[in-house]
């Protein structure tokens, strides 16, 4: 017997967790002497108040969809890919190499090649931890943490050394050629005669992110590989017994995860900065963890959670401009969301399960009680 109806598991628990995180965040804001209600309105207005603000919100959303999907795919195989940040920044290296060193006739071809490049680089960076987990039993969490730092050191070396243009003082690549500049929302909506803010960074990769959501949904629930990934995630011995090769599942799911994380750099490197800078991901790889947890590893949930976090990041940035609340408030909210939806899940779940059982028991004697339940 299910202890709870499905809607409670999918909707009620995340909403309650989110409320708890919100209440504690409000207490934190009160503790530093600001008004939480006013802060909330500034954040909502900052995230959704104008086309320009929406442009930023959707830009962040795009980042978080990619990293959230990356974590979610790994979660389905019961693996915790904490290396999304490293994979995303190495994916950025793939984008930079494609854009700088190859001549492109048109942005669409460049975008296609950059998508392949970023996915390949991201996947390659996830390959070693995946292979070590599958073959040598090295804990994937620890190896991916280590690879985040190794990736950061590698990029640091490349950006102050070989990739830096002559005469430049800044640790970054040169500006990508004009032709690789992909259309942003202003250009796209302009074609349909809809005005949109020119300066906002949301760009065409938002639609690639949406497509990735559908692709991941189809992969996980509509293909044989997806079935194998889920079976492996539910029970490794059962999957083995059913003839599923654990090495293959671990490596393939981590490659997909790394590729998704890498493709984030289409948005921030190719779409926004148009060059590769140090720390280009700005921690988006870690936000993917919160997004996947809140979205219950389902692509639609990931999309909603990414939208929420996108609004949170943009709203938090505006909040720090308008008030004395530092932008790090967003980190606190993010931590609380991870804590309540991830680690303290049982704290919310256990009382709710008891409640639903009690509600069900009450009317039970009236009809014929089934002894099996």
């Amino acid at each position: 017997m299910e202890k709870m109806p499905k809607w409670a598991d999918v909707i009620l628990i995340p909403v309650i967790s989110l409320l708890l995180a919100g209440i504690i965040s409000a207490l934190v804001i009160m503790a530093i002497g600001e008004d939480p209600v006013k802060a909330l309105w500034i954040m909502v207005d900052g995230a959704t108040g104008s086309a320009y603000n929406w442009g930023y919100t959707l830009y962040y959303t795009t980042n978080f969809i990619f990293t959230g999907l990356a974590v979610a795919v790994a979660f389905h195989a019961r693996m915790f890919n904490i290396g999304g940040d490293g994979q995303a920044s190495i994916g950025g290296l793939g984008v930079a190499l494609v854009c700088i060193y190859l001549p492109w006739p048109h942005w669409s071809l460049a975008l296609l090649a950059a998508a392949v490049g970023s996915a390949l680089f991201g996947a390659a960076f996830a390959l070693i931890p995946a292979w070590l987990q599958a073959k040598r039993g090295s804990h994937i969490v620890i190896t991916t943490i280590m690879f985040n730092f190794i990736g950061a050191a590698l990029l640091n070396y490349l950006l102050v050394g070989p990739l830096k243009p002559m005469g430049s003082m800044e640790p970054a690549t040169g500006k990508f050629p004009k032709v690789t500049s992909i259309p942003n929302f202003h250009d796209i909506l302009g074609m349909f005669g809809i005005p949109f803010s020119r300066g906002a960074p949301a760009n065409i990769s938002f639609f690639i992110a949406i497509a990735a959501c559908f692709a991941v949904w189809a992969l996980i629930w509509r293909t044989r590989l997806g079935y194998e990934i889920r079976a492996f995630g539910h029970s490794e011995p059962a999957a083995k017994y059913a003839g599923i090769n654990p090495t293959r599942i671990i490596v393939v799911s981590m490659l997909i995860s790394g590729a998704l994380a890498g493709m984030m750099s289409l948005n921030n490197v190719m779409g926004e900065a148009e060059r590769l800078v140090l720390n280009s991901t700005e921690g988006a790889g870690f936000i993917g963890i919160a997004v996947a947890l809140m979205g219950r590893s389902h692509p639609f949930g990931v999309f909603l959670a990414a939208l929420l976090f996108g609004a949170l990041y943009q709203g938090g940035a505006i909040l720090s401009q308008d008030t004395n609340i530092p932008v790090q408030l967003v980190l606190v909210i993010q931590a609380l969301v991870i804590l309540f939806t991830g680690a303290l899940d049982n704290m919310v779940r256990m009382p709710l399960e008891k409640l639903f059982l009690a509600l069900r028991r009450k009317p039970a004697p009236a009809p014929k009680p089934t002894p099996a339940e």
Partner: protein
Amino acid sequence: MDLITILQVLDATVRLSVPLLLACLAGLFSERAGIFDIGLEGKMLVSAFMSAAVAAVTGSVWVGLLAGIGASLVLAGIHGLASITFRGNQLISGVAINFLASGMTVLMAQSWFQQGGRTPSLRGAARFNDINLPYVDQLKDVPVIGPIYADLISGHTILVYVALACVPLTWWALYRTRFGLRLRAVGENPAAVDTAGVSVIGMRFAAVAICGVLSGIAGAYLSTGLQAGFIKDMTAGRGYIALAALIFSKWRPWYALMATFLFGFLQALALRPDLLEKVLFVKVQVQLLDALPYILTVVILAGFVGKAIPPRAGGEPYVKER
């Protein structure tokens, strides 16, 4: 290379190793009891802030140290609540704690001091100052031994000696006391400990609390010993290096000392890239030195050079059979 340069590098090694060592021992207690802890970084950070902040306000570094340990214990309590009481995912809890520390420290620092997320710089009794061991003045002029004693062994803050003393203490507590036997057993086979009538939950909370105290001291050392005040994100990944050292040492105290000194030595060398060039006659990239602890740990984890086997019940919440 002359003796003075060598001593300088070794002195820097000691200073940089100590926070790693304390955090590594903290993780050792927690993980030996079966609680994975990737929140070492966050606990160090929150203690670094709290000890510097309280020391700046009260003027006493000892009160600051206590406050730092207290703050670290609060986060340890959250980790215990999530991973022991509510049987949540210990890794996710650790990630949350790191973000919480990173955000809260800046929020509090800005709210209390309005200096852009830092504390005022500490002076005099608000800092742990270097102490001289006995007979430094008499021995200073003896060749070789004199400078080694005066510059390398003497002249550190009290926390350095505390950290070094923690190594044999940890060894003794883990391998020579009843508490240590039970603690290790809880990390290997909690059901057996439960059968023997010892509370698994109690043992694990005790381990998490010790971890909180030690990472609290590590954080306090950063902001009141190594540097004079807190700055944003000042732990700079040390919690993760300590985690790497813990795996490198295969969860054993004496090897933890060696691993953290190796990693501290690499950090000290990264500060003096000119020296390596002089000795090895090739230019060594600083970034390679930065990445080396992580690369070495991955190699060890891969089991190509001896196998690192974590405590068997690590990461698994204990569910009593009903």
